[in-house]
């Protein structure tokens, strides 16, 4: 068996979701692209040392999480911004006032997610938006399944506590 062919299959199966994951953590296309390359380069270098039977998907998420959070630390808190929010996700033609308010809220939520402990925000994104099981999240974050689940719920509870004033103000979004 050619190990490089196996690796190419791994890339084919997982590069799209890993890119989406990095995009969600970084919220910047070119940073996500750089980190996708870095993730798979690290994976490539380590590929043969991976034990047979390991969960490749969780392993790639583990590498991607490390790469993205290293990147976020280098980027620095001052640069954290939500400047390229996807227009597809916004309601059609909101009023200017509503739009401004909406962007402020979204930026505030984004910053709050960024301020969470890494494992909590990563676990939350993996569970809710990447569709990983708690077992896979546990493998990716090198903790047990209960801890992985606790990370997700702690993230959500912290965020909900930070934004009580927005509770049920549905017209905002």
């Amino acid at each position: 068996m050619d190990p490089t062919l196996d690796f190419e299959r791994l890339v084919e199966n997982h590069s799209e979701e890993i890119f989406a994951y990095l995009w969600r953590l970084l919220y910047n296309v070119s940073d996500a692209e750089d980190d996708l390359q870095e993730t798979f380069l690290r994976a490539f270098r380590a590929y043969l040392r991976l034990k047979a039977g390991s969960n490749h998907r969780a392993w790639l998420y583990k590498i991607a999480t490390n790469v993205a959070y290293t990147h976020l630390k280098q980027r620095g808190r001052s640069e954290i911004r939500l400047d390229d929010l996807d227009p597809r996700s916004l309601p059609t033609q909101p009023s200017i006032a509503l739009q401004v308010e909406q962007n402020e809220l979204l930026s505030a939520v984004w910053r709050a997610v960024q301020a969470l402990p890494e494992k909590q925000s990563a676990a939350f994104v993996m569970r809710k938006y990447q569709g990983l099981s708690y077992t896979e999240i546990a493998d990716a974050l090198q903790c047990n399944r209960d801890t992985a689940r606790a990370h997700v719920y702690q993230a959500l509870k912290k965020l909900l506590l930070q934004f009580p004033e927005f509770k049920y103000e549905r017209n905002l979004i």
Partner: protein
Amino acid sequence: MNEILSESDLTSWLEGNNQSGDLPVLLHALDTIYRPGPTAENIAKAQTNLHRSIQAWIQQVIFYDDFSHPLVGTVFVAVNKHGLVALNFGVTEEQFIAQIDKHNRKVLMRSSEYTAKVIRQVYEYLNGERTHFEISLDLSQLSEFQKGVLLTTLKIPHGQIVTYADIAKRLGNPKAARAVGQALGRNPVPIVIPCHRVIASNGSLGGYSAGGGLESKAKLLALERVSLV
């Protein structure tokens, strides 16, 4: 009402069972930020660039393995997609890796499959069952002069010896005997490029930088039934 949602409400939202509007704005905001993901165009571009990089990495992968032979002990060989890049013996695995990856930039994989052809031929040679090799070489990392010296050395038949000065003469630079010796001293693939067949003009063995030094050089020449007068 400032209390947070119950755990079962959160579970319901997390599992995607509650997509109705009756949720805290925070959860809607999170969906707005995270649900869309990158565009199909961005995904396609990222995958194309990644694919290109991976093809380049694969070209640079070095596969290595070792075997043992009573004549010289453990022999390490390293190949890439173009051919043999390194061979050495009398060294540890760490020393061999340091030799082929000085700056720790390359991707190394242990592989018996890619190295099998080289290992079989070198083993047969050491057993006295083979007098020439059918192996591709990748000398692209070497200087033009060193490549010239090594390719000239490659043509020396089994069981014959020439001097450093002979090689220099064949390269059209008769005064370069010392430089020839230095180039052979950095031969990345001893045995396969038979630098042991090159000796000093005064009939002494000269030098040998592969494992075991001159003792190994003498063993290889004895294997080829070369008698030094």
